[in-house]
């Protein structure tokens, strides 16, 4: 089961869950993903130790997609 989560004030919130064969669940997660992009969140896929990938569309074949806020110099 793949998950789309957003890091927020609650720790994190699950926005969607889908399997590769479940088009409806994936479509709902995709809509949620796009709405989060419009709110300024950034999609990131953790690829294992030391690696992550920035994504602009929701990948169907991954386990976890994390929506994060932008960073800036402090």
């Amino acid at each position: 089961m793949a998950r789309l989560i957003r890091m927020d004030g609650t720790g994190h919130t699950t926005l969607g869950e889908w399997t590769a064969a479940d088009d409806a669940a994936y479509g709902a997660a995709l809509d949620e993903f796009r709405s989060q992009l419009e709110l300024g969140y950034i999609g990131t896929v953790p690829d294992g130790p030391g690696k992550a990938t920035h994504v602009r569309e929701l990948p169907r074949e991954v386990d976890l997609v994390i929506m994060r806020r932008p960073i800036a110099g402090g």
Partner: protein
Amino acid sequence: MAVGQALPELASVPWRARTDERWLRRWGRIWRAWTLAYTVPFAAAAGVMLWLEPLAAPVAAAALAHAWIIPELYAFRGASVVRPKPSKPRASSAEAPGVVATPAADPELVAQGLLGDLLGHDERELQRRTGLALERGELGVWLVGEAGALLLTPGGRRLHCFCVRVTAPELPPSDRIAHLLLALRVDEGGFATVANHAFAGAPWRVRRRLPKRMRPALDTARAAGR
């Protein structure tokens, strides 16, 4: 759809040169020269005053104090980038319609779980003990805190301090670290470019200004960087 490894936040700092090994070496040399420039004159003045007039010892002592205090203040500034920051009240979890609710829990505990999933076993234990997440990169060994990061260059002789934070102060501490960690993993050079460079110098100068709890993380990073 993956869009490569450029950090999207780079668009907000188009005027900055991308941080790489050469940039770090240059800034390391600049910081060393700067430290000498404000230390040596005070120390030399103290020596000359004592040589000319031993009764000027109190003034010489004040000059030596300046030569000691100013580098200490800079090192304190460097260490401050990873000091824990106060959290603001958390936001509601129901910010978006259709959200699958996460069971109510302490936000920091929830965030700690996610951060733990992103880290290896040893790094997770180190982060829980010290508050800093260790990450090996191409530029060196990073220690990521809530609002800043330390970069120990290969060989462990120089430490760069970066001020960088997530633009959402209501996040629990571990989520702030996870934000920085994910951005660092996407694009290490881009992460260092977006961050504000606060200090560069010998690790021991920063270590003694770190909270005691965090010092073992720097020791571990030095061991990992050798």
